[in-house]
Each structure stands twice: as C-alpha cells, then as structure tokens.
C-alpha cells in the first residue's frame, strides 16, 4: 500500500482557494452589473443589445433554425447588437446563459425561444432583472400573475398548414396523407387538424394517418414511421417534430412527396418537396426592434404582452412551391391564402366533427384564431386516423 493523503490539498489551501474564487466572482458580477445598468437600463436606443437562446443547434433545418434566421436578420438592423447561444437545455442552464448575456454582454432584451424556458426560468429571471425585457416564444402570459417585463409571442402556424394541406391533397394519388407528430399536445393537434381540413376542403375523401413518436427528436423512430407509412400507401408526408430533416429525406428516398415544417427543406428533397409551413421570425423580430427603438417597452405598456399573428400579420410564410405542384394546386392554395389574410376564411368553421363522430364545433359557430378553445384542443378532426390517448 502506498501512503498518500486522501486529498492532496490542506484545509487551509482549500479555504484560501474558495475565498479567492468567490472574491473574484463577486467583483466580476458587481462590475458587470454597473455596466449593464448604465447601458441597458438607461433605455437609450443608440445600441440595443438583444440576446437569443435556442434549445437545439441553430442549423437543424427546423424550429431552431427558423429562430436563428430571425436572429440573423435582426443582427443586420441598425443600432442592434445581438448575442446568441444554441443548445441550451430547459434547465437552470438557461438561467445561467441569460444571466451572462445580461451581466457580461449588457443585453437589455432577451428572446427565449423554447417552450420549456418559460416556467420557472424566465419568470424567475424577470423578477431578478426588472429592467430587462424578456420575450418568450409560445408561453401564455397571464396579466397580474407574471412579472410585467415578460412578454410572449407566437404564430398561428396552422394557417400555413391548412394551405399545405390543400397542396398535399392536389398532389396525392392515393388520397392518403401522413403526419408524423411528436406528442399529442394542443399545438400539434391543431396543426394535424388544420392540415387535414385543408386537404379535405379540396377532396373530402382524403384521410390523414398520424403517428406519434413520443418525443421531439428521435431520428430513428421518425425514419421508421416514415417508412411504415410509405409501405401503407401514404404518398404525402408532413410532420411536427423539432427537425423535419429525417422525415423529408426518408420521403424523398421512398419516392413520395413531402411537405415541410418550421423552415425551408427543399434542398433535402428537390423532387418531392411540395411546400412547407414556415415561421417568419425575421419579420417579428424586426417589429420588436422597431417598437423598442421608438422607446416603447413592456413596462410602460408600449408593447403588448401577448403578441400573436398568422399569415395576415406575416408571422408565417410558405416555402416556395416545389416542381411537383400543379398549376391548379397553386391557384387553389393562393386563393385560400388570400382568403385567410383577408379574414374571409376561418379554418374552424362549424360544423366540425372529431374522428369519433362527436360534434366538437356546432353548426354556425366560427372559432377565430384567437379563440381559447383552440389553444386547448384535445381532439382529432374527422378524416384523421389516430388517437390522442
């Protein structure tokens, strides 16, 4: 046996080290606080520092890429400096990232782009930094409950899915569409239902097969699901997962059509890509920059706490039509898009039955996009095979 002390440092050395690091940490922290209160809190619009946090890689052909494209656009605007961090998990790690954006980079505006950041992380930080404005993507802001420097923004992307459904119905020969979804939560169900309603507005015999994979990013299971559906004769695939890359590529390999989501995936499937429901965060972030540079803030009431928008507000866009889309399909899709923008067409226009045959929206009742019922959707529309249970 060798005799060695179990721990090579003496107690004194450990104490000295601990004291030194905490002293260093404190000075850095206090020094940076002084900076940020001078730069950010003053409300000067000369140089606006905005921080962006993404949950995954910034070029995933999906949700995070859509936000990163918005960030890239925002960073080109005059008087704006941006900092960003990708791959930040929905844990206290996000608090650390945001804290260093505020303390070290002097950010006065934070865009937290993943759903799970909201509660408790963004809410906790908002109380800690009352001068910083936090904008969260997808969270439901509650007046009086949540701090007033928190705002929420999101888009009604199911409007774009409705148009994609119209295009899909035109392209399909087998009249069977496939939808690969992560989890049966309201946002996902709403996309499935809108896609199906769009397709069935063209041909009521079209059905949509849903496969839930169980999580947001499971490439192997997504590929398995895409292959199973291709085997079953489905000939247009779309999805609601974090990165549609695998689904679109598998569809292309199997020689069937695909419709994208989140961002433009046409490079992955040059022959079979029809169109896709994309976010247009560039426009949204530009609107925010404009408002903030005009001196408006969440705290003084200049910026609304809840910002929602669809095709009309240009929160969304459709991927340019692929080569497989017929003229007829383009015409029908463009017409529906114009009607949605003008407000003539309401997607959830009764009577609508779910796939069990129960009437969920009565005849004559129109649910506009802002309707709260739609945010709590727990049913699949008639024509969808699948269940939420």
């Amino acid at each position, binding site marked *: 046996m060798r005799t060695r002390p179990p721990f090579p440092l003496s107690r004194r050395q450990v104490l000295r080290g601990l004291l030194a690091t905490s002293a260093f940490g404190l000075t850095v922290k206090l020094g940076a606080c002084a900076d940020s209160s001078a730069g950010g809190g003053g409300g000067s619009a000369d140089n606006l520092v905005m921080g962006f946090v993404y949950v995954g890689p910034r070029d995933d052909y999906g949700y995070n890429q859509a936000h990163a494209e918005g960030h890239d656009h925002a960073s080109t605007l005059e008087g704006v400096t941006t900092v960003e961090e990708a791959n930040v998990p929905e844990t206290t790690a996000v608090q650390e990232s945001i804290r260093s954006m505020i303390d070290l980079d002097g950010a006065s505006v934070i865009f937290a782009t993943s759903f799970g950041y909201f509660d408790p992380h963004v809410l906790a930080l908002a109380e800690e930094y009352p001068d910083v404005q936090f904008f969260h993507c997808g969270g439901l802001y509650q007046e009086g409950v949540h701090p007033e420097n928190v705002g929420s923004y999101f888009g009604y992307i199911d409007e774009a899915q409705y148009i994609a459904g119209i295009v899909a119905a035109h392209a399909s020969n087998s009249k069977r569409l496939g939808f690969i979804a992560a989890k049966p939560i309201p946002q996902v169900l709403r996309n499935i239902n809108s896609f199906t309603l769009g397709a069935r507005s063209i041909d009521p015999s079209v059905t949509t097969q849903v496969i839930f994979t*169980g999580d947001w990013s499971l490439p*192997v299971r997504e590929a398995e699901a895409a292959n*199973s*559906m291709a085997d*079953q004769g489905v000939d247009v695939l779309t999805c609601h997962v974090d990165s549609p890359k695998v689904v679109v590529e598998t569809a292309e390999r199997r020689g069937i059509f695909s419709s994208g989501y989140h961002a433009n995936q046409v490079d992955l499937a040059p022959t079979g890509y029809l169109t896709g429901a994309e976010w247009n965060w560039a426009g949204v972030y530009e609107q925010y920059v404009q408002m903030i540079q005009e001196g408006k803030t969440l705290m003084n009431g200049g910026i609304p706490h809840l910002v929602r928008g669809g095709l009309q507000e240009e929160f969304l866009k459709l991927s340019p039509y692929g080569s497989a889309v017929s003229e007829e399909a383009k015409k029908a899709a463009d017409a529906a898009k114009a009607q949605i923008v003008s407000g003539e067409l309401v997607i959830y226009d009764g009577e609508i039955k779910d796939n069990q045959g129960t009437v969920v929206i009565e005849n004559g009742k129109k649910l506009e996009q802002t309707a709260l019922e739609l945010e709590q959707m727990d049913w699949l529309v008639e024509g969808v095979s699948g269940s939420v249970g």
Partner: protein
Amino acid sequence: MSADLGWWGVPLAILAGTLRGSAPFLFVSLGECLTEKSGKINLGLEGSLLMGAMSAYAISYLTGSPWTGVIVAGIAGMALGGIHGWLAQQPRVNDVAVGIAMIIFGSGLAFFLGKPFIQPVAPQLPSIAFGSWSSSPQLESALRVSPLFILGVLIAPLMQWFFRSTRWGLLVRAVGDSPDAARAMGISIFKVRLLSIMVGSALAGVGGAFLSLYYPGSWTERISSGQGLMAVALVIFARWNPMQCLYASLLFGGAQAIGPALQSVGVDAYYYLFNASPYILTLLIMIITCSPKRTLTGVPGALGQTQE
C-alpha cells in the same frame, strides 16, 4: 404503388426494421464484447458512435466517397478508444467513470466539429437490392440491405471463432479472466487491453457511420438517441457471446419498428407502450433466461477491477 398492405405491413415493417435499424446496435455491442472480454468496460462507446457518425458524414461530404467516410469513422473511434484505453488503465482509475467522461468528451467533440455539417447533404452508402425479384415496392424497399450490415453480421461469427480457436483470442480471454495468470505467461496486459479497447471503439465508430450514411442517413446531434448506451447493456444481455450479440441486436432493431408500424395500420392506443417494446422484450428475456442456480455465465473474471 398505392397497394394497401394492411396488417401485412406490421411483419414487413419489423423485418425491414431488423435489416435497417440493427446495425448500430450490432457494431457497438460487438465492440463492447471485445472490450469487456479483455476485462475493461467502455461506456464511452456512445461517444465513439457519435464521433463516428459525425466524421463519416463530414468525410463523405468533403471527399464525395462514403466508404472513405466509413474508414475515417473507424479511425476516429480508434482514437477515442486509445484515450480511454490509456486512461482507464492508470492506477486506481475507475473505467466506468472514465467511460462516462468519454461519452461527454466524444459527443461534445462530435457536436463541436459537426456544426458545419448539419446543413449539407452527404453522399450515402449504396445498398444491395435483394428484393428486385419482387413486384411489390414495399417488399423491395424492405429488402434493401446495406453492405455494412452484412459486414457486421459476418464479424459476429468471426469474433466467436477468434475467441474460441485462436491464440490471440485466448490471450484476450486470459487477460480478461485472470490478469495475474496472463502476466505470469509474460503477456503485456496493458497492450492487450489497449488494443482490444481500440478495436472495439473502432467498431462503434463504424456503427456511427451506418447511422449517418445509411439509416436514418443524416447527421444531427440527436442521431444516436442513446443507442450506444443501449448496445453496451446488450452485451450483458448477450452474456459476452458475439453470436448472441448478433441475435440481441436483430431483436432490438426489429422491436424498434413495432411502435410506428402498429400506428400506421391504425392501432393507435398505447403507443408509448409499443414504443417501449425493445425494453420490455429485454426484461422478459432476462427473466426467462435467468436462474437462481448459477451465476452469470460468461462474465470475464476481472471485469471492471481497477489496478492498484
């Protein structure tokens, strides 16, 4: 094209899933089998798998040759294995702890170096069409087999023969079962273990190449979704026997397809349960095959012991 297969789709999907999805499990579990036979555990194969996937995709994209990518994936895995093999054999170092560090290091390195390769589309490995006789496009697509998978299937009996009938195989087993006896024979334990770990890790790297260059066939950071770790566990399930590693990998690959296939024919209840079927099957087989009368057969005697 639009012929509806109905319920026949389920066995077909399981068959196709076995042929498509089991190769990563197979390569990693064979690599781990070799490693553990020499008496060390390498949990870091998950890192090698990701590193292999990334480097194969990157090299395939840069050179245009997927087979070069496969070779580089093997080399990358070997390099990671070299680090593990050296570190884990230092005195009083625990190989499980080093393995966990290697998971984090390997995956972190793969994510860091792989950033620029998420967007581009790399040339994929070719496949052999065993189903070209069939008139059904579904069957034809199910029977597309990657040569890499066939290679893996061939390695399993080869490794079995290596352990049983060759001098080198005996050396590996001796080092793993009784290092003292091996030392008395004049064998360098360090070298045997280092080589076993490096070759094992290279196999895992090749498994990664299968993920990114054949199925699902793209490089994303979530590509492995824990398959490397599962394959390490498979080795225990397979009782350190290469042929059983093959069967266990086929079982896992096929079981992966059950959940999506059942949903595609309209069985939409309990899909979380069906998605968990690989694990349920494992548990069932463990329960059926275990016996209170004997200890785990085949476990290398010196597995996981740290050197003083």
